[in-house]
């Protein structure tokens, strides 16, 4: 997609493209994504991952849904099988990065100050502080927020959204932008389900399907260990798929990425140093 030949004019925006300006002014049709600059950096990040065969997963949820606890359990479960590194996003403190390091995995903390989301440039800066050699799986733990992080491509291959059972089963209907972009939805803290008689996982799944989403809904309790197998199996499949893409010099993007992101992922083409 370019900004010059008109190929970016779609049924959705055609009406804006052709309209005369008032006398004495010049009107220019632009049709450029507002986040074009962010997307460029995200594509750069994705190429960086692809050159090394690293699978990048963006973890998103509300604050306190259990992202860091999930990562701790995942690092333990995949020890000796997959090398994991983590980029942690929070408004303040490096508590979460410290928890990850305590598990023996490299972690970089991004403190965003007042920013409610990570963007591709923040992740790019963090990547300069973390060596990806020998790493199989990079988790980007986004700022806890079910709204803003959904709009920013970071260069990840997959989006994982966590929903803890204490939050209510209708969250996919209330936050469609976030849940629509999920490649996998994890229902966390299921050990608390017996105490919450008004949370119905079937209702969560129905709302998720209403978003035209085929993402699996995987219930688990990272604290008690229950249900981790489904999540680990999903991760292993994704790791294997990323290794296969690496061999063929291919890349991928989250399933519900915007049209522009899809195009950029395709444009990225064959990574420069794919293995023979």
């Amino acid at each position, binding site marked *: 997609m370019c900004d010059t030949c008109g190929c970016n004019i779609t049924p959705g925006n055609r009406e804006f493209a052709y309209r005369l300006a008032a006398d004495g002014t010049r009107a*220019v049709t*632009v049709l450029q994504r507002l986040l074009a600059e962010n997307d460029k950096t995200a594509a750069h990040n994705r190429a960086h991952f692809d050159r090394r065969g690293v699978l990048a997963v963006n973890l998103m949820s509300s604050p306190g849904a259990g992202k860091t606890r999930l990562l701790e359990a995942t690092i333990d479960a995949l020890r000796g099988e997959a090398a994991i590194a983590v980029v942690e996003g929070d408004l303040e403190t490096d508590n979460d990065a410290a928890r990850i390091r305590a598990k023996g995995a490299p972690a970089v903390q991004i403190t965003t100050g007042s920013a409610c989301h990570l963007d591709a440039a923040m992740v790019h800066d963090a990547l300069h502080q973390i060596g990806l050699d020998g790493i199989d799986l990079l988790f980007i733990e986004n700022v806890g927020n079910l709204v*803003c992080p959904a709009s920013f491509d970071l260069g990840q291959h997959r989006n994982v959204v966590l929903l803890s059972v204490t939050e209510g089963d209708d969250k996919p209907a209330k936050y469609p932008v976030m849940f629509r972009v999920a490649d996998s939805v994890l229902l966390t803290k299921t050990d608390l389900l017996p105490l919450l008689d008004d949370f119905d996982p079937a209702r969560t799944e129905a709302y998720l399907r209403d978003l035209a989403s085929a993402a699996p809904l995987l219930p688990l309790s990272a604290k008690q260990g229950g249900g981790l197998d489904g999540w680990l199996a999903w991760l292993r499949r994704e790791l294997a798929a990323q290794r296969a893409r690496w061999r063929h010099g291919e890349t991928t993007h989250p399933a519900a990425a915007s049209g522009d992101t899809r195009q950029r992922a395709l444009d990225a083409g064959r990574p420069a140093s794919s293995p023979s």
Partner: protein
Amino acid sequence: MHELSLCQALLDQVDSVARQHGAVAVHRISLSIGPLSGVEPDLLAHAYALAKAGTVAENAELELARSPVTVQCADCGAETDVAPNRLRCGVCGANRVALVRGDELLLTRVEMTAGTSREGANHV
């Protein structure tokens, strides 16, 4: 509140368009925003009022066009406008649909007063 950082990106793009066309002032900026872009048009308008100060778009009006969410059904082929949290075919109810529009966040148009015109900038 990511609308402020979006405004920054918007103003950077407008500035670059204005420079490209040798414009001395920008009068109107048009955006197309879909409900599934995750951006709240009203918040964006508020943030824009703050962010435009001191830029080439200081006196420019922001025109926000809200697009509907339109899906095309893979089963029956119908194209229907739907609610952002119910992406099912409006005709047959299937959820095997492709999004036609509704997630865009586009700078569609910039109106400006040109200064000394340059070759190749003749998009009027």
